[in-house]
């Protein structure tokens, strides 16, 4: 039997060494698996870890991919810190994108970019409303939020599918389930760099991340609300003793995380797609759960975790495209990486003790 014993003190050196060791182990097992399956192991590792950094436009693609992960992950951080298990960010992402899309398509001729403020706000409201359902069911009827938020993901997926095939379908789409293209005022442009032009898909939406990270850091560490969230998550009884209202904290974190997922949805669609289609998210809402935990539920950590996960996802895509490695194999590799990263983090905090167990 294995028992985990908390360490008295987390060593500062290990905070740096553990992730490096995790990557070394991942590479080792990756080499084994790729060799065993008959792929050139060194080239595969190159594709996964190095190729995303090999060109400056690829680096900017990492940021583009990390952008929704960081935004959603930051929202989920607030939930998870207060022991509220919002698993439905994927659905809130879709509903945010959908409501914003509805507003955008209602003004087909608008050109001013100030309109973006309205669509982003609409995205926040859409996501927050979708998260409000589990929030109200949990606080009023004590219904488990994990179940409700997860099930609502599938409702949202089917709903957007219905909308783009029905009410919002573009008559000129030749039968494809697509909406009309967004008006100019609802599109997020790529960032032009003087003398270079565009860097991959890098768009202005990334600015939102640069605002969000410091603001969420201040919110968590320097405000009473952040303190309340922390206390509620660590000791609900103590939150009562301090006079914090559990239900209003629960509702607040769900609305904030739903809203942020919705904003991520708006940015993703407005910057990269430009119209509504049945699939607007590619599992961002679920991947962000991993990002939130890998980032140890801290805003700065989530920034880095988002970038790491985005890198590996892009690297895996590259390996699939250039070497024809099947998706399941790169998926396996991603799994190994996560396993070692999380193991490394656990072993920083706990010692392992092997003991003779009962048979």
């Amino acid at each position: 039997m294995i028992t985990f014993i908390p360490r008295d003190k987390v060593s500062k050196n290990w905070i740096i060494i553990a992730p490096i060791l995790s990557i070394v182990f991942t590479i080792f097992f990756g080499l084994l698996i790729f060799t065993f399956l008959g792929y050139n192991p060194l080239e595969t590792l190159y594709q996964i870890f190095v190729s995303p950094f090999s060109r400056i436009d690829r680096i900017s693609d990492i940021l583009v991919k990390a952008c929704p992960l960081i935004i959603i992950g930051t929202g989920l951080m607030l939930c998870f810190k207060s022991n509220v298990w919002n698993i439905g960010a994927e659905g809130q992402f879709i509903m945010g994108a959908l409501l914003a899309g509805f507003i955008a398509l209602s003004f087909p001729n608008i050109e001013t970019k100030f309109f973006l403020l309205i669509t982003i706000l609409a995205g926040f409201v859409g996501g927050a409303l979708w998260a409000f359902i589990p929030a109200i069911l949990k606080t009023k009827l004590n219904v488990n939020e994990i179940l409700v938020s997860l099930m609502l993901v599938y409702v949202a997926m089917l709903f957007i599918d219905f909308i783009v095939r029905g009410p919002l379908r573009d008559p000129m789409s030749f039968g494809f389930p697509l909406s009309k293209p967004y008006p100019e005022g609802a599109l997020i442009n790529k960032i032009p760099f003087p003398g270079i032009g565009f860097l991959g898909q890098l768009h202005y939406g990334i600015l939102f991340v640069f605002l969000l990270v410091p603001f969420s850091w201040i919110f968590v560490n320097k405000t009473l609300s952040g303190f309340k969230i922390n206390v509620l998550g660590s000791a609900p009884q103590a939150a009562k003793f301090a006079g914090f209202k559990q239900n209003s904290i629960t509702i607040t974190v769900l609305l904030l995380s739903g809203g942020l997922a919705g904003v991520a949805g708006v940015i993703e669609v407005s910057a990269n797609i430009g119209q509504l289609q049945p699939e607007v998210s590619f599992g961002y809402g679920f991947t962000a759960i991993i990002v939130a935990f890998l980032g140890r539920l801290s805003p700065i950590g989530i920034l880095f975790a988002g970038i790491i996960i985005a890198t590996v996802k892009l690297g895996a895509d590259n390996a699939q495209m250039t070497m024809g490695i099947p998706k399941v194999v790169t998926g396996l590799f991603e799994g190994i990486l996560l396993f070692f990263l999380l193991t490394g983090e656990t072993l920083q905090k706990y010692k392992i003790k092997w003991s003779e167990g009962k048979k």
Partner: protein
Amino acid sequence: MAKKELDILLKATKICKSFGNFVANQNIDISIAKGQIHALLGENGAGKSTLVKIFYGVLQPDSGSIEINNQKISITSPNIARKNGIGMVFQHFSLFPALTVAENILIALDNKIKFKKVVDEISKLSKEWKLFVDPLKLVSELSVGEKQRVEIIRCLMQNPSLLIMDEPTSVLTPQEIKNLFKILKKLASSGCSILYISHKLEEIIELADEVTILKSGKSIASIDAKKTTTNFLAETMVGKKITELKKAIRSKSKKIAFEVKNLDKLKDHEFGISLRNINLQVNYGEILGVAGIAGNGQVELMEILSGEINSKDNDQILLEKIPIGKTNINERRKLGIETIPEERTFHATVPNLTLSENTFLTYFFKYSNTKSWITNLLNNPQNSLDESKKIVKNNDVRCPETNPLASQLSGGNLQKFILGRSLANNPKVAIFSQPTWGVDIGAATAIRQKLLDLSQSGKAVILISQDLEEIFELSDKICVINEGVLSEIFDVRDITATDVGLLMGGKNRKNQKMDPIK
């Protein structure tokens, strides 16, 4: 004391056990004779529970040896302990409330017997040892004393040669304790050894043949219990002279500080307690002691007195005749009512937060409501750094570093911090639940002195405690809570410990008027 080799049932030599850097047991030697009642005495954290868990196979020692009947054995699981004749009654009972007594005993048996036979066996044992319980009753319907009897019967079913009892009297009334002692003495005279763990000195003198005293994980003395005094035991256990409390000389004010009138509260979960028709009042300069066995509604009463939960009507709770039943806990703090719940960690404090953050926990409203909106917005635990340092300094809270996590403090020091945090608010009314529970004698004395000082300076104090000695030592007036019903209030000079014991066991409930609540 010399013992013949033959007479020794269990002999442990040089037992060591550590948890991380914390050494719980260090070279402990102990030998228990056959038919002996052997007491294990020590303060909280001295290593008593660790040692007996090693004997019962729940924990494995790092080094050292255990012999039973002169044969060296290694007890790797409770199963093996039971096979070697060791039975244990834990401090916290491990019974399923939804099953009957006989079912509970049946599932714990190592060898499978028919249900009918178990029932017969229980009836036989309970008659033989005067351990009266109905085998077909549900455990949830039993009193604490009865539950303990079930645990003892469960051990006796295995014909033990050694019975370990971990603080068995902490949940019993004085009458139940007397009864238990009779049973234990009878058991011992029939040849069963008993290892009896306690920190209550009088009990040990009355019951035990031999006492082994543990202090900070070491066995420091084995003494003949019949030839010693409580004072000697106490000083050996603590390692220093115990300071006596300075009794307060009070100016008796007749001004009512805090009142509760006809308070009812239905339980909100299955194993909770409903409060029924609670009435109490406390004057300034007075300590009102609320005695009672744990789990009789103290937690529920505390929730409603502190303001974590509101009472149904505003005028069920009054501060200087002003109704406050509908105010929340922070409004009550601002009015000068300070409360301390019995759970130190996870309720009164958050263990993984620092002391300054834990100060902020009940102080945060003092730093908002300033004129500058940015200060209000950025109201964070940094603000309470100075206040928490002051609390640490004024209350002799010993910290391993300047602003440690609450979990780094020992129970006694954490409680001193919690008390200091409340007193720093300069309360008019202080309501404290089990303030010295599980705290070492040194800290307990300091805390009791603070309560006396508080009442002497004219404040009203309500002390909810299951420690009868403490209640009698500190209180001016005493009442008893039993199954959610509060007795009338007695002057401390008009009531004896026996009377209080009877009330704790629920004796007065029949003559008290009780309106069933809907």
